[in-house]
């Protein structure tokens, strides 16, 4: 009985069906305007899943179920293959990378945080540990076509001033302060987003592992 279950769990057919299942669930989700528009990006996913009506979120539950089984399948398949000698480790590095990325999503789905703040010069952003960030200066530059070409906010933290711009956030104790928008009239105002993404390091490690395995596989397949 257990042997049969193990054989099923590491079977290629199961992997193919599960991948098809994940794709179908995601495709349904992409057309589900209710699901996409109902704040999925504004709160940790696990909280959204608890709060959203099942009629909005059923496709995601389905996807999570397929994905969970796919992870088990990938793990068992890699263990089984690595037990046999002489096998390339490249596909299994890719599996490990994929599993780490899924774990990263789980971390972020559980402990992620996002909040928008509109601040004027002299305003402060408080952190749970008591630290405060002072918004010293808000500035923007406009290009010849009237589009905003650069925006910046100077933030003071622990006596040190650091500039925050799009693509250049300020990181502090696991939180990132992102500058989203600036308006200069009637007085300078900046829109900030505070993010915490606990899965980011695991996602990066997973991506690096996957890429390493992928490059090894390419090298092995070269000329074959």
């Amino acid at each position, binding site marked *: 009985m257990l042997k049969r279950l193990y054989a099923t769990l590491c079977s290629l057919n199961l992997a193919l069906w599960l991948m098809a299942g994940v794709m179908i669930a*995601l495709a349904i989700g992409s057309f589900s305007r209710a699901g996409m528009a109902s704040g999925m990006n504004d709160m940790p996913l696990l909280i959204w899943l608890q709060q959203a009506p099942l009629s909005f979120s059923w496709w995601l539950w389905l996807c999570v179920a397929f994905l969970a089984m796919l992870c088990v399948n990938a793990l068992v398949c890699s263990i089984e293959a690595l037990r046999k000698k002489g096998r390339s480790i490249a596909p299994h590095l890719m599996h490990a990378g994929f599993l780490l990325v899924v774990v990263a999503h789980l971390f972020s789905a559980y402990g992620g945080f996002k909040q928008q703040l509109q601040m004027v010069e002299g305003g402060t952003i408080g952190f749970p540990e008591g630290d405060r960030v002072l918004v010293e200066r808000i500035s923007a530059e406009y290009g010849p076509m009237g589009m905003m*070409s650069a925006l910046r906010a100077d933030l003071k933290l622990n006596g040190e001033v650091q500039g925050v711009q799009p693509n250049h956030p300020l990181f502090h104790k696991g939180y990132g302060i992102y500058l989203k928008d600036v308006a200069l009239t009637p007085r300078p105002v900046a829109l900030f987003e505070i993010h915490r993404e606990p899965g980011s390091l695991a996602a990066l490690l997973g991506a690096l592992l996957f*890429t390493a395995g*992928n490059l090894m596989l*390419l090298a092995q397949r070269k000329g074959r």
Partner: protein
Amino acid sequence: MKWLLISSAVLYLASFRRPIFAVALGSGLAYLASRGLSLGRLPLIGPQDTLAFFSSSIGLMALPFLYSGGASAERFFTWGCGLLAGLFALLALPFPTLNMPLPPILDIYWFELHVALAFFAYALFGLAALLGALFLYRGGRQLLDLQYRAALVGYSFFSMSMVSGGIWGYYAWGTYWLWTPKELWTSILWIFYSLYLHLRLKGQAWDRGFAWLGIVGFLVTLFTYLGVSMLMKSSHSF
């Protein structure tokens, strides 16, 4: 410099021979270079630039297959590549060029890397579909091996594009993942080619299914690139 893009499209469509294809590619690349020089960045924003970039990516990625691969003797393949690249060059023509500087949120190397790698991958998926069609029409396992090779390299480019997109997203938006139709279809495309590469392990009995999957994959690619941008609201729009 639009004449360079027009001549590239015309030459691609007439590329029954490899030298004509190479000249068409040269013309397309010269157009992109002229756009890049005038903008001071890679031309990767707006439908015209992205379609022209996609067209040249197909030409560039096809070169190794045309000059050293097993498909080099197939005149139909040369013309098929030309038709594919020419079609996207033609599609680019009616759209106006966007000559604005990069919006601050896109002004980062990770963005350019993300988009360029995605187009190289899309191009290779297109070539894989052509090779699959050629296999179904004419047979010959070598064509299927080439299809696998094109799809594998395309998959690698696409995976790296997703990684660079995630890093860009983390710096730009504070997260490496957003729940938008574009991200979902990007994941669907990546899983589709994961499935395709795993199907290879099923052996020769699945050869025709494998070839068909390579063709369907390019349809999924086109929907991910054009369909989602045109039909769905997303953070990515080209």
